[in-house]
């Protein structure tokens, strides 16, 4: 049973995607990596649920979700 939402779930997806890209404008590769890492941690904490997080890790790795 999957608790991770894998169907479209973001209002104004194009706007959000543009906002995400804009965050990286003018950053070096290193700064971008750091930003992405912080984002992952912030989002992970928001999700909190360990099952969902493990499913998210699998989804990101393009692996089957248990």
């Amino acid at each position, binding site marked *: 049973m999957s608790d991770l939402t894998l169907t479209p779930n973001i209002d104004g997806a194009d706007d959000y995607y543009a906002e995400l890209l804009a965050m990286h404008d003018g950053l070096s590769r290193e700064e971008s990596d750091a930003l992405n*890492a912080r984002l992952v941690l912030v989002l992970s904490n928001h999700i909190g649920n360990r099952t969902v997080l493990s499913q998210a890790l699998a989804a990101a790795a393009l692996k089957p979700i248990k």
Partner: protein
Amino acid sequence: MNQIFETPMYAYSRHADQDATTPPRHKVIVVGAGPVGLAAAIDLAQQGIEVVVIDDNDRVSTGSRAICFAKRPLEILDRLGCSAPMIDKGVLWNTGKVFFDKRQVYDFNLQEEGGHAFPAFINLQQYYLEKFLVDRVRELQAEGAPIDIRGRNKVSAVGTHPNHVTIEIDTPEGSYNLEADWLIACDGANSPLRAMLGKDFVGRVFEDNFLIADVVMEADFPSERWFWFDPPFNKGQSALLHKQPDGVWRIDLQLGWDIDKDHEKKPENVIPRLKAMLGDDVEFELEWVSIYTFQCRRMEQFRHNRVIFAGDAAHQVSPFGARGANSGLQDTDNLCWKLKLVINGDAPESLLDSYNTERVWGADENIQNSSRSTDFITPKSGMSRVLRDAVLDLSEKFEFARPLVNSGRLSVPCTYDGSPLNSADALDGPDRSRPGSACPDAPLTEGFLLPKLAGKFTLLTIDADAPDVIEEDGITVTRLALSLKNDPTLALKNRYLGEATSGVYLIRPDQHVAARRPSFDDKLFRAAIRRATGKE
């Protein structure tokens, strides 16, 4: 300056055994008078088991090595009669500060759960612990307990037989042989006994070096633990400052992998590093300096018939999280009551296999914890460093990231989930006292709970009826009858009953829970006693 490690504490003196025509046989020989070997010997001697401790040295550990002692080992040392001087001498602290680069990212206050006789941990030099243990050996000897300690006796060969062990011992006056029914190998991480028996010791070496220095200074740094990630005075590495008694401070400086150890150890190279950290105007004296490469590894099996390994000889962890001596003391706590029952014929030899099962489980837990700390402190890949730094940056602004910062996790007792000695949990009680757990302490109307559970099988009843004594196949279990009426702080209720209104616990001599139910049942508790002593 304190130099107790320069004075012999168990100087060599010739023993009649050295002049015997045939090798004398002892019940138990403990090889190694480090904290673990001494604790094992005291534990056995207190229970009337004859024991000889053999050590190739004659004094306590040089330099302090271990400095943090956690609650559970303090509870064990209490049972061994050594906790009072530890608490008197040790330093208590509860504030920690975390620095990243040039700034302090946060500080924390360890909120101790109340209602325990002992603090979460104390800081104390390992040589003091060893001294207090040797003092206790002397005290037991004065009382006529069957315990002997022989300095400058070095084991040079070992022979194993189905029912005994033989060893050859080198002394300043030549060598002699001894036999033992049982041998406990507590001869440290480089265990010569392990090598002599050709046993493996596998795991992970962390490709890194740490300069460990104990400095004496009159500086007024507070009694806090300061940990730096990537500080300006040790770029790209980590550093730790921690207080010990007698104005001694522990400093750890990570140095990286490609270094010349002999060069780095020289005072003329150490002192500038410390000045960069402490400031130019701070006066200090070096008490002890060493450079370590840390490892996490263990033997596959801790019991090899009549030779039983404990402490660093059996498992080694990196010091982040202070788990070396702390877990070694839990080894002997687990082993000694079992060995006593086996020696006295009250339990089958197979009970000792549960020592292996339970302490291998404990060692794996410790290795996992200290590997994770080491991976956080010294990230092993570019991306693990990026994530680590992200955690630290976030920790400055947001509380959520602070629990992810890992500069060492406090050593807590291992719960032997799945141990063959446990009976199925039959009480809807708190998780923390489920079968396999070390009993949490609790204040009673008079004194604390744990001393009432020490060194024997106990049937703890809380608002439940049961016989005062149960005898089951050589094992005597005595009842400790408590009631929530003698529970001034509700700790007993919260730690042992939860929502339940009554409970009956079978507690092992090492204060671990073997079984629990809401009420007494003769047949089921007798089965639990047999199970807890390796008879089912």
